[in-house]
């Protein structure tokens, strides 16, 4: 297999994984939501509801398959068995067809769901009581911030080693590797080229510290009918979540340390590049495995508080939670695993900006240092 063929393969798999996870997310969406609108229990199996859901799910699958076909068609255009052409362009075409198809389909589904909501007067049921454990936060056993010192030690080791072996580092430094494992871009040896990965590592540590803190702050949501069981589930879920994120962050930091060693000390990239491709794949598999484990164990109980079930609190087609009446900063998601931000909270926008700014800051810092 030549380089371009490998590239076609990797990009094909990438788009396939994207398609399967998106379509999976659409099909696994809970029955109590129809295009981001809450459906009361008795109406969930209504023929109209099923029709809206079925028709749009079908259309989405068709759009995604069409995108894949379009991408593959570009590859087969020349008839040379994918040994030429431009895989990146094919990916863009596939994504434009897929995402471009998704948006109007989603909008149409949302409009029909809104009409049905109006006709049938849907609204979320109000709970009659709320039960909480006053000592919930003291009971939380998350990964402590001190454990991130291990990450810092790895970063420090990488940076110190680079400083000590300055003379061994080639000039220019290889900064980009093709899919076949050969360096295809170089930067002049300097502070930026040598230490940029350490800066990225530090940014990742900050990001995961923020995420860990947000798990700690997320509101408890207990089922009033069986508070003890649901408290144990939530405490376990938070702990598992925190440990999983810790492991992921450690994995990424180590991966980048490895990347730094390959570029600086000429470690055999030929043998390591399959690993560099395989390890991120492992990461994706780990995330899927985690979500599967959590849902199988029933740790993340679906259905949130009455605040979260209000359609009006979800903006941008159900993507962003904005509820002035809800004092919580981190709230349970309407469906799916984990928590989301309440943008109506004074700190909501700040936290979101923080999460968004960390990667942007990394990119800016790296470019500034590299130049």
């Amino acid at each position, binding site marked *: 297999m030549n380089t371009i063929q490998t590239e076609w393969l990797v990009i094909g798999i990438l788009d396939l994984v994207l398609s399967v996870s998106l379509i999976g997310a659409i099909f696994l969406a809970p029955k109590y939501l129809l295009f981001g609108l809450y459906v009361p229990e008795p109406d969930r199996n209504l023929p109209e509801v099923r029709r809206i859901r079925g028709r749009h799910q079908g259309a989405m699958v068709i759009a995604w398959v069409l995108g894949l076909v379009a991408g593959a068609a570009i590859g087969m255009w020349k008839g040379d068995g994918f040994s030429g052409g431009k895989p990146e362009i094919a990916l863009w075409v596939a994504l434009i067809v897929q995402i471009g198809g998704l948006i109007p389909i989603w909008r149409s589904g949302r409009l029909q769901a809104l009409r049905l909501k109006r006709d049938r007067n849907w609204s979320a049921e109000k709970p009659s009581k709320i039960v909480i454990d006053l000592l919930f936060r003291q009971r939380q056993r998350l990964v402590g911030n001190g454990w991130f010192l291990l990450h810092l030690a790895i970063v420090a080791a990488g940076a110190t080693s680079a400083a000590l072996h300055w003379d061994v580092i080639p000039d220019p430094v290889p900064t980009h590797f093709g899919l076949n494992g050969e360096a295809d871009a170089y930067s002049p040896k300097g502070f930026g080229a040598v230490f940029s990965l350490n800066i990225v590592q530090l940014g990742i540590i900050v990001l995961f510290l923020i995420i860990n803190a947000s798990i700690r702050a997320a509101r408890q949501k207990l089922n009033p009918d069986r508070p003890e069981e649901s408290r144990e589930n939530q405490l376990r879920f938070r702990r598992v979540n925190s440990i999983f994120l810790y492991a992921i962050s450690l994995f990424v930091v180590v991966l980048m340390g490895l990347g730094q060693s390959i570029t600086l000390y000429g470690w055999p990239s030929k043998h390591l590049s399959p690993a560099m491709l395989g390890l991120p794949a492992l990461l994706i598999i780990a995330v899927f495995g985690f979500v599967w484990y959590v849902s199988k164990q029933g740790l993340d109980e679906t259905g949130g508080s009455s605040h979260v079930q209000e359609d009006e609190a979800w903006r941008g087609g159900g993507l962003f939670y904005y509820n002035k009446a809800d004092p*919580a900063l981190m709230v349970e998601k309407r469906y799916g695993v984990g928590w989301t931000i309440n943008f109506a909270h004074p700190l909501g926008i700040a936290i979101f900006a923080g999460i968004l700014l960390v990667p942007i800051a990394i990119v800016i810092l790296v470019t500034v240092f590299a130049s």
Partner: protein
Amino acid sequence: MWMEIDLQSEVPIYTQLVDQLIEGIAAGHLKPGDPLPSVRSLAADLGINLHTVNKAYQILKQDGFLQVHRKQGVVVQPGGMPGIDDAFRAKLARGLRTLAAEAAVRGMTEAEFAEQSAAVYRQLRMKGEDAR
């Protein structure tokens, strides 16, 4: 310690909070010096307004059951609970008066009324003994 808020009750939410916290102290679930969640965190967990929680905490602070520190946050009164003063006796009499009136109208004897209140008191104290 569990807290349960009845959203359909006629009793205001801040009163429910006050009552349950005092009961928690009486039953020994909350001990002197124990930290309580911040106003923000308790409001978030219950999904109710910040002012409601603040009002409950302020009432308990004024009566001397809680201390609100700038740094340590809210804690159960560590230096001895407030004693029995005239104000409390008056409040107790007011509360009992309503209940006694209804008991009398319904035909309950004085002995039974006294026995009932003693039983409730004993039950709370017993829970406290267990917790200790």
